[in-house]
């Protein structure tokens, strides 16, 4: 037990257990990490500890500013860099599973890749302006002819139009394309809208 008469202004920050009434910075850091819970009076009542906790909190408070400053100090990626990255990756276009196509001949093995179908589904967005298709998943065993398949699609839509209407239009476009190009037994097309985009438009107010 110490009998301190130091006022907070005169007290200097100490980081050794002697300054912290027997506690360590390690303990205080973890106390702070846990939101000072459960409350520990031996820390909460210790001026030395409180000083150190304040300092640790100030340090933590500076971190977002450091991250932002570091990011701002980096230049934007130039197109040369983007191309360098793209040429470095193996553009296998992610074939995925092979979906059978009926052939009617014993020596014929015909199929279409899941990747081709995903690209097809994505292309449906061209028919619904402003809509963007994200990830597309084919749920079910696509490798078995006739197996029931659900299509799951993430989409973002432009602000200002009713979402169900847009989703229905997209769904219809996807269905048409799937019927035209595949023999999948599509039992459902689930569209999940996560993002509403404000599209820039000349003559309209900015957001």
């Amino acid at each position, binding site marked *: 037990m110490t009998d301190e008469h130091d006022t907070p202004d005169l007290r*200097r*920050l100490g*980081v050794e257990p002697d300054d912290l009434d027997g506690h*360590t*910075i*390690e303990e205080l*850091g*973890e106390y702070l990490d846990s939101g000072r819970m459960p409350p520990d009076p031996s820390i909460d009542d210790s001026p030395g500890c409180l000083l*150190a906790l304040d*300092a*640790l909190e*100030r*340090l*933590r408070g*500076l*971190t977002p*500013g*450091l*991250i932002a*400053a*570091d*990011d701002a*100090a*980096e*230049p*934007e*990626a130039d197109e040369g*860099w*983007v191309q*360098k*990255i*793209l040429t*470095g*990756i*193996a*553009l*296998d*276009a*992610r074939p995925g599973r092979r979906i059978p196509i009926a052939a009617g001949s014993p020596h014929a093995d015909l199929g279409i890749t899941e*990747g081709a179908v*995903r*690209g097809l589904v*994505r292309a449906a967005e061209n028919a619904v*302006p*402003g809509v*963007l*298709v*994200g*990830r*597309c998943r084919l749920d079910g065993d696509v490798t078995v002819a006739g197996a029931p398949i659900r299509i799951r699609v*993430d*989409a*973002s839509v432009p602000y200002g139009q009713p979402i169900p209407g847009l989703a229905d239009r997209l769904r219809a476009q996807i269905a048409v394309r799937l019927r035209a190009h595949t023999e999948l037994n599509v039992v459902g097309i689930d569209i999940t809208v*996560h*993002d509403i*985009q404000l*599209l*820039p438009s000349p003559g309209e107010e900015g957001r």
Partner: protein
Amino acid sequence: MGDDGFHKTLAQADDRIVAGRAADGDTAAFAVLVRRYTPMMRAYARRMLAGSADVDDVVQDAFITAWQQLPALEDTAKVKSWLMRITSRKAVDRIRAHKPHADLDDVEAPAPEHLSPPQAAEARAGVQALGEALRELPGPQRECWILREIAGYSYEEIAEELEVPLSTVRGLLARARKHLIVRMEQWR
């Protein structure tokens, strides 16, 4: 909507949509991710590598791995922190490659030769001071602190990433914090 309008829309789309398309194989979408997150990844690598010349190599490696592993990312909305993690891994690999027998048992940070003169100290923003203090830390302490405070790793995840015991992580973090708060105090 012409092609240009579309590309503008894709560039503005949120992470979940862009990363979802890239996961499905859309290279234009992947290019959007590259443009969007290169500065963040470079900044992060630069802090981890303490200004070495390897920053662009690390970031390029990270993007190559990201392209390969994107299909396995369940929640594409989390692509930003996911990219940060890949960058961490590549940076740690790079650090270890340069110092294969790095002794993670700590070396105390060298005491600063002079304290900054009061006028300069006052002019310095806290953030700038923090940046400089970070650079003074020995590698293992700095890496630990960056993984925790910037990349948001848990203690266990740091232990896994750096391949050291949990107790070492705690010790490194405590030393880093000690040094940083003392330096920040000197500069107040």
